[in-house]
């Protein structure tokens, strides 16, 4: 610490952060706004690193992928509505269910949750941005480009067709000579980069970017959920990236990893895929459960029952998720692998999940529910969660029944899990935070309609699938004969699917109408307890005019709850406005630790993302020189990015600093 003492004299390297307040319109506030603003027009659009913009981009992009996957699903349901239909060829059907699965699992369900977390984390944690704003932008751009990449072979009629888990040898060169599997393999490696840097950003943000006083036991459950998912991801994503990369090498460079003739093992694929796949399923549900745990209490007018139990069960779920992958590694022979992944996963998830379910039910029970649209979605979610859980236990209870496991029963179950635990909280979450995002309330009447149509359509469409499964209808068939006795259930399922889609449509209409004509929202329209509601709606570019001091889990409910030792301070706090600044705190008890200099807007994330995507295009097309050139362009972008900057006090040379001017 000797160096700190020496540099004490130099205010550039060490200073006491100024306390104060900066009400809207004050000189200090104007200065902050100028500091954090993005340039107008396309320049700001390409270079912004504002987590709120990036979060919204994530939300919109992922939602568009949901719609695309939804359209694919509806086409499949048209084909299956009646027996012996010829709308689709078997090959087209294979491509559709594969792209539907890939889109929903990889391009919708995690990215949409990253959108919420990107937007909300700094606001909930009392920070002015994420730990790595530029990395955040990069992760979005790569996500976007990899989504486009994955769809590139679709118009050619050559989309991936081996199912989303892409088993070899069917995904090998022997059975699949076209570009489809190569596109899938390279696209997934690219997407893996986005997921990884995003996860790193969340982890570091949690440990370093909380407002003073927000000790680790005071963070919202959404934060726990996303943190858990991110930790799981940094361990699990390399596995699937490696698997896809080796698959690509096998197909294009002549290696033998999965090549049976030369000692390779197709089973290796399944090991690597599921080591990733198990944690991934938790990654796409835990943050969504966090959304409910945070938002539901607002409408029950009381804090969540059992905060610590829910937080712990979140992490326990993830630990168990990694345990489940181990059963793949030590189990001898094939049966375990053949078990449906969702079946096995839900068996384990059910124990800590039960804790969460009881916490939600108790919260509703002990509270005074207000039946607004978001509440309906969250309550509906609890019901679907229970049904999905029960069918999960059923599949897990018959683990050796391969009949059931490769039937529509599993299709029903996985949609109850994914739509129930992901889509419903997501839509509810959008209803809940929309006023914060855009400063307008969403329409309640349309909202209630959208809920009931979605809820009824979903159950109408997907519950009969259980029945189809019990009647022996296998999954992934493109049509069936009339005498099989599956005609009625399939018709009902298809009708239900379209009703569900209509519900989504009402929701979209509601968004458009409310954006234009919604009632202007106050800063805290739902009278919610957490920090993101402490600032105006929509939030100013700098988030917090002063960095608040937090004294409890519910800073905005302190007057009525009286649970903390003291009172949070939201008006008075650190000013921090010598450039883009925010406070870094210690990992557990959130004591002020450092004044962090945040980067300005920059084009480098966009270009690095673009060049990385082009590297993969080059690899796909075997354009050797082009690939090399793009790798060089990536290195150049990275060098520019990493170059130590005086403004960020990353280096020491001649820092010119005029304090008077700074305050002017």
């Amino acid at each position, binding site marked *: 610490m000797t160096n700190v003492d020496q540099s004490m004299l130099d205010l550039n390297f060490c200073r*006491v952060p100024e306390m104060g307040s900066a009400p809207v319109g004050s000189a200090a506030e104007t200065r902050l706004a100028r500091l954090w603003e993005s340039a107008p027009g396309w320049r700001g659009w390409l270079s912004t690193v504002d987590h709120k913009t990036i979060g919204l981009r994530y939300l919109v992009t992922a939602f568009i992928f949901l719609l695309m996957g939804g359209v694919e699903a509806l086409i499949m349901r048209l084909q299956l509505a009646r027996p012996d239909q010829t709308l689709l060829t078997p090959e087209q059907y294979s491509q559709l269910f594969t792209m539907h699965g890939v889109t929903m699992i990889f391009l919708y369900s995690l990215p949409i949750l990253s959108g919420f977390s990107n937007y909300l984390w700094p606001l909930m944690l009392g920070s002015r941005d994420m730990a790595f704003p530029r990395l955040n932008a990069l992760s979005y751009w790569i996500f976007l480009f990899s989504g486009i990449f994955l769809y590139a072979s679709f118009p050619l009629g050559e989309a991936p067709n081996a199912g989303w888990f892409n088993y070899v040898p069917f995904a090998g060169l022997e059975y699949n000579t076209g570009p489809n599997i190569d596109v899938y393999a390279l696209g997934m490696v690219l997407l893996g980069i986005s997921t990884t840097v995003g996860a790193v950003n969340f982890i570091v943000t949690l440990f370093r970017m909380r407002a003073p006083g927000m000790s680790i036991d005071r963070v919202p459950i959404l934060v726990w959920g996303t943190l858990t998912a991110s930790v799981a991801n940094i361990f699990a994503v390399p596995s699937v990236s490696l698997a896809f990369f080796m698959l690509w090498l096998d197909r294009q460079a002549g290696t033998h990893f999965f090549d049976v003739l030369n000692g390779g093992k197709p089973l290796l694929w399944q*090991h690597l895929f599921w080591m990733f796949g198990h944690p991934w399923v938790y990654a796409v549900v835990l943050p969504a459960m966090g959304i409910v745990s945070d938002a539901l209490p607002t409408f029950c007018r009381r804090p969540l029952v059992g905060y610590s139990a829910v937080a712990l069960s979140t992490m326990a779920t993830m630990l168990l998720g990694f345990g489940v992958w181990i059963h793949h590694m030590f189990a001898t022979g094939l049966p375990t692998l053949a078990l449906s992944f969702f079946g096995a996963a839900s068996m384990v998830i059910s124990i800590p999940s039960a804790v969460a379910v009881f916490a939600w039910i108790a919260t509703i029970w002990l509270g005074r529910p207000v039946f607004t649209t978001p509440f309906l979605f969250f309550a509906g979610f609890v019901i679907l969660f229970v049904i999905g859980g029960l069918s999960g236990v059923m599949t897990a209870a018959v683990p050796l029944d391969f009949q059931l496991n490769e039937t529509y029963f599993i299709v029903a179950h996985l949609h109850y899990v994914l739509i129930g635990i992901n889509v419903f909280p997501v839509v509810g979450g959008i209803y809940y935070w929309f006023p914060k995002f855009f400063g307008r309330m969403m329409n309640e009447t349309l909202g209630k309609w959208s809920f009931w149509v979605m809820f009824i359509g979903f159950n109408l469409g997907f519950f009969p699938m259980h029945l189809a499964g019990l009647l022996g209808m296998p999954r992934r068939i493109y049509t069936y004969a009339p005498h099989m006795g599956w005609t009625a259930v399939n018709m009902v399922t298809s009708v239900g699917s379209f009703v569900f889609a209509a519900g989504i449509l009402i929701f979209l209409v509601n968004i458009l109408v409310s954006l234009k004509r919604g009632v202007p929202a106050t800063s805290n329209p739902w009278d919610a307890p957490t920090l993101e509601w402490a600032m105006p709606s929509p939030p100013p570019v700098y988030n917090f005019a002063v960095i608040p001091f937090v004294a409890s889990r519910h800073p905005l409910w302190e007057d009525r709850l009286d649970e903390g030792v003291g009172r949070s301070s939201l008006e008075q706090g650190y000013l921090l406005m010598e450039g883009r600044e925010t406070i870094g705190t210690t990992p557990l008890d959130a004591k002020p630790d*450092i004044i962090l200099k945040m980067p300005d807007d920059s084009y480098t994330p966009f270009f690095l993302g673009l060049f990385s995507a082009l590297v993969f295009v080059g690899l796909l097309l075997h354009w050797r020189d082009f690939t090399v050139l793009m790798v060089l362009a990536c290195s150049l972008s990275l060098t520019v990015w990493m170059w130590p900057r005086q403004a960020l*006090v990353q280096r020491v040379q001649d820092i010119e600093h005029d304090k008077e001017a700074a305050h002017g």
Partner: protein
Amino acid sequence: MAEAMQTAQALPVGSEGKRSGGWWGVLALIVTEGSLFGYLLFTYFYLASQSEQHWPPDGLPELLIPGVNTVILLASSVFVWVSERCIQRSMLLCSLVSMALAHILGVCFVAIQFNEWSKTTYDMTSNLYGSLYFTITGFHMLHVIVGLVILMALLLWIALGYFDHRRYAAVTIGGLYWHFVDVVWLFVFTTLYLTPYLY
């Protein structure tokens, strides 16, 4: 105001060593890259243990040159460490020289490794072992090259006088990455060169 919260205490500003975001970010990066190598080595053992081929096909690997190369790489890590120590004390020249030595040793490692590659009688496509050997060492080589680019940048930045005892987080962070690359090599080396002697 939250009790017991000292607000009038001076705090460091900007990228201060292990309090900087970058340090934490690289730690997380190391976890995920470490997992990547974990999976690579898992793949090796998984396939090797089930292989009916003679393993490795060309007989036991020769240890002398790879062993020396390992020492070279570790020595390079030591110099990076020295370089950081020097900059902590604002001994710029010492830091510069150590970093240069570290870089040169890294380049030697690469050269020797390329030579090792050219000596093999098999390539990626010849057999399963070749696929594994070249993929694993190739992945590591990629990391070494990235590491060398980082060391080069650090060398340049030290030479430009960007760092002294007050701010040198880049050296700490880049150095950590280099140590990681070297530690990973120990695992790769053990797996590819030593474990074949065990069975």
